[in-house]
């Protein structure tokens, strides 16, 4: 319907909300940090962890935990928006930008326009390289100054905060470049292929 009818008896709480330039449509601010995952939380030992950058069958580069920690780190303070409606403002993360990963792998540019993020446990999510460059994407290992807990995606999760937070995949292990944009886990299950919260791209067809 073009215009929403007023819901009888529902009172405005506009004053109680964050300003509209901070809160995308349909979102509300939470002070908690809710958790959403499709299955059991994997507990990954740092000694067993690695992150691999890959293009088709070829490994472009791979970092173990010590090597990854030695890459230039950045701190990112930003808001995050979950497709289940909560937003959390001014969260602080630390990690390595996608730009830096390309640089560390000796790549002047991305070898293909799309990336599939692969995670421990089989979760995947797809992203356009344009949504990752220029500091827009990162692989983060710390939240609010502490290592990210397993339940929130530690030891390392993807971080693409300008898109709905399912794109910031937990327990990241591999970034695989691809020539065409294939749907990942939630994207195959009815969720939007890109997921821009400001355009309210929650579900397929939005």
């Amino acid at each position, binding site marked *: *319907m073009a215009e*929403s*009818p*007023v*819901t*009888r*008896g*529902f*009172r*405005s*709480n*506009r004053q*109680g*909300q964050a300003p509209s330039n901070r809160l995308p*449509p*349909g*979102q*509300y601010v*939470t002070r*908690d*940090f*809710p*958790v*959403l*995952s*499709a*299955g*059991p*939380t*994997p507990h990954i030992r740092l000694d067993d962890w690695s992150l691999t950058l890959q293009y088709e069958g070829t490994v472009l580069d791979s970092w173990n935990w010590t090597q990854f920690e030695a890459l230039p780190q950045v701190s990112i303070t930003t808001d995050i928006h979950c497709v*289940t*409606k909560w937003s959390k403002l001014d969260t602080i993360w630390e990690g390595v930008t996608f730009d830096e990963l390309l640089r560390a792998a000796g790549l002047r540019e991305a070898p293909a326009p799309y990336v599939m993020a692969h995670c421990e*446990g*089989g979760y*995947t999510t797809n992203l356009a390289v344009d949504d990752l460059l220029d500091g827009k994407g990162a692989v983060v290992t710390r*939240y*609010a100054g*502490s290592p990210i*807990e397993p*339940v*929130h995606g530690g030891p390392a999760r993807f971080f693409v905060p300008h898109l709905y937070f399912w794109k910031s995949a937990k327990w990241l292990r591999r970034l695989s470049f691809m020539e065409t944009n294939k749907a*990942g*886990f*939630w994207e*195959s*299950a*009815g969720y939007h292929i890109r997921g821009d919260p400001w355009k309210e791209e*929650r*579900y*397929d*067809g*939005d």
Partner: protein
Amino acid sequence: MIDDPTASARRLGWQLAEVRDIVVETPRVKTFLMRVAGWPGHLPGQHVDIRLTADDGYQAQRSYSIASPPEDELIALTVVRLDDGEVSAYLHGELRRGDHFELRGPIGGYFVWSLSVGTPLQLIGGGSGVAPLMAMLRHRERRDEHGAAMLLYSSRSVEEIIYREEFEAMARRDRDVRIINTVTSRQPDGWRGYGRRIDKAMLAESCFPPKASPRSFICGPTPFVENAATLLVELGHDPLSIKTERFGPTGST
């Protein structure tokens, strides 16, 4: 990766839903029975988004699991009243039969069960997390061939057990379904269920053995789901056979 018939390109438009009935389940929980014209049908475990609009244009959206089976005409939404919840407070305190609000769905193609997903059906619920599990049990009961099922359901007190009478009747009608309650804070005299938080021994006693390859669905508050899912994996259940849905804060960062 997911081969699911719900993953289609149809657009999820907002529709006006009418409140046809309101059921008081517990002191803090009500079920809203909604009529949605042209409802496309759903799978047990899916949810809907609802949107409320104030007279100044202010809107609030929330997601709620569907507790009714696809066979029912009305969509049942079971909602807990949260102390600081602007939407749940409105639904509980203000909404009446005959009122309307916007709704769209069904949403979610992962935390769903139907017979084609397989049996036995193993359900573990905490608090209002039982709602999508109830949709699965209600749907299962409508099928002639439905396999074995169990639900381990954790509530704070007996008064807070949602759908208690319906569960008891379901277990009386069907010997292939086991409903096991645990009550974590106050147990009345003569209580025959468990009286503690879910632990490994309780899961070992209650659940199907891993070799039966049950399809497990766990829904509840985050620490509850984390605990139950971790313990099921420790007991030998395949992590890929365990589907989870969490809500609420984590209790820490």
